């Protein structure tokens, strides 16, 4: 019923993430780490990621404001961390954009950097929304399941 539907929906949603290339195997690995001891592990990680990466993003933006005097090294370092985080949660598309940014950075291509960073942010924001919806649903399913169990 509703519970089932929700669950089905949840599964479908997740699958769509993979299909669209938004997430990769790392996400699956994170889910595997989730257990009774850590029931909301994945969500926690994602929340942590989005919280922490905000400052990274703003740092990068700040650095990019230099326009034609970009400090590529610094950008590379910042992006390195962002890439690492993104890959740790399995954010595939975001990571891909980050890599693209890195290439531009190394080439000293300012325009390229700007553009790819915009893309990065876009993917990042879009993934966030989707994951938020996902977790919300998951919680619903979880609670209704728990409710069922308790019955």
């Amino acid at each position: 019923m509703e519970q089932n539907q929700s669950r089905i929906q949840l599964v479908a949603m997740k699958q769509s993430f993979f299909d669209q290339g938004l997430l990769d195997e790392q996400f699956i690995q994170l889910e595997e780490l989730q257990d009774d001891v850590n029931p909301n592990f994945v969500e926690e990680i994602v929340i942590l990621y989005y919280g922490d990466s905000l400052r990274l993003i703003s740092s990068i933006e700040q650095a990019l404001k230099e326009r034609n005097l970009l400090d590529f090294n610094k950008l590379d370092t910042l992006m390195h961390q962002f890439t690492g985080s993104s890959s740790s949660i399995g954010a595939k598309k975001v990571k891909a954009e980050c890599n693209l940014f890195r290439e531009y950075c190394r080439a000293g291509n300012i325009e390229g950097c700007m553009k790819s960073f915009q893309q990065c942010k876009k993917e990042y924001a879009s993934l966030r929304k989707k994951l938020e919806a996902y977790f919300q649903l998951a919680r619903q399913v979880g609670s209704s399941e728990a409710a069922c169990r308790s019955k």
Partner: protein
Amino acid sequence: MDDSGDRFPIGMRVLAVDDDPTCLLVLETLLRRCQYHVTTTSQARTALTMLRENKDKFDLVISDVHMPDMDGFKLLELVGLEMDLPVIMLSAYGDTKLVMKGISHGACDYLLKPVRLEELKNIWQHVIRKKKSDPKEKNKTSKLDKTTSESGSGLRSAGAENSDENGKLTKKRKDQDEDEDEDKENGNDNEDPSAQKKPRVVWSVELHRKFVAAVNQLGIEKAVPKKILDMMNVENITRENVASHLQKYRLYLKRISCVANQQASMVAALGSADQSYLRMGGSGHFHNNAFRSFSPNGIISNLNTPTGLNGHGFSPSGLLQLGQSQSFNNSSNDQLKFQPTITPVNQNILQGMPMSIGFDHLQNNSSKGVFPVQNLNTDVKPTFPIPNRFPDQIPKVTTSSSHPPSLGISNNGLMLETHTEGKHGGIGIGYGSSSSSVSSRHSDFSFSMLDQGRHSDNWSSVVPLSGIQTNSFPSSDCFRQTAIPPSDNMASLPLQAGYPGGSLADVHSQGSVFTNSPEYINGNLPFQGWEDRNQDATYHSNITYGSINSLAPVNGAVVPRGQTTSNSTLHRNLDTKFCDPRQMKHAGFADLTECSSSRQPRVNIVSQQKFSNNLGSLEYLASSMMEQEQDKMKLLGGDFICDSYSGGVSL
């Protein structure tokens, strides 16, 4: 470590360092899933503090490469240096360069983010591996005592001998060094009969600095181990450790003074050429330091093994100079830094300098113009005792510009000889002698080594020789061993240079460079030790300084192309014999030549010796560093070809 030894790897104590909280949390969770005992921190400094407070608290360290408060590579080096724990690097990027850098800095592994569980499940192997290659740590003191006393006498006599042939002494010394310096490489030194592995005391730059400060304060005459130990106020060091270190240091000082004299004359002879050379380093300052450290054996010896050396064949020392000037530019600033610590250059030199052996000859030949080194800092004693050990190593690094390998590396004597041709005999190391060309060459060379990129702080800042690092590493090994005879090979720089600790990564070496059996690098060893080692022709191969070849096979004396002929001879000599600089003279050169043509010119780091002057301590340190590096290298396995070097370098 095995706290739950029998259940190992379960319960293995891991310290995870990453400034990114997301990654850190994921990593921690994964590690816990593997049933390891995990401690995390986001600050590298905190990690270091934790490690320092109790070395036995952890079995393994995993660290991210990029961190805000400290460079991951630096942390890596420090950990390896001070605590000798296996370190695994983590990064979001897996470029070959970065990985190489990590390896050369001493990382046991390099993982890419996101890390997978399967990968983490296997990391315990590094702990085992490290333990295995670390011979009986427990065996410390008793053996140490024994060794110390032996070495004491050995050293003394060795020092006295300086001139070649003290194979025996060298050996003894070598043994001592090996024992003392805790060769990590257990396998490598065949020669080390005692093979007693005492717990390795790593004479890091800071430690050495403290040591030198204490000695200076007490006055060299009155400096006794006990007092020095008290003054240094460092834990985990026994009186014996200090005693043996002191011996080496004394020897080194002696050598420096000898070389200095010689150098002075040589410098005069060489005249301007050198000056320019020295300038080259740009860091001028550098040179001194660098050379100082190098001169002692270590540096040069490494050079010999051209492989590492940037192919330039520049004797490490020579190169260093050049490199310094030029390459140093790479690391130059770092190198300059070296001075106090051990000018990075030195490191390179050391590394590359297998040459030290040559120095002996160089010194003798000084007239030959051998001392290109002069350029270096004029302090540099032309005679870099090219660690003869590495016959092959003959650091072709002819530091002096175009100087043919005579750089001293190999055979100090040799170099000089060959050089006479055109060059001043300058110290093989390229220093001085042809100064002109050399400089350019050196840059190649020396910095090939240095450049190795690694240099980035390899030795915890000591060895800025980043450039040389790569190349130097091989040499570093060499250096250590090379009992830098004539000159003060006390390449105090434990070759941090290049090594960097890893850094040696750059060790071009074509892999082989490392071959300089780490032993050599001790620098402390009066090249005598090298004699054994030098024989290794293999070094030649190691030093793939391709470029060097062209330069003039003579690594030491990076002889200008034109000189090839002469160089070749030099090479020849150098190659073969780095062993005792004295001996090397001929042998070395001969080898060098061979090598050069065939392989990469060995770095005739001959001139390295000269370097040591200033650095005195640096050299010492450098050499020890080199050892360390070598050890590290050994661990890395890498290509270090340290082959034949008797002893040990075989990484």
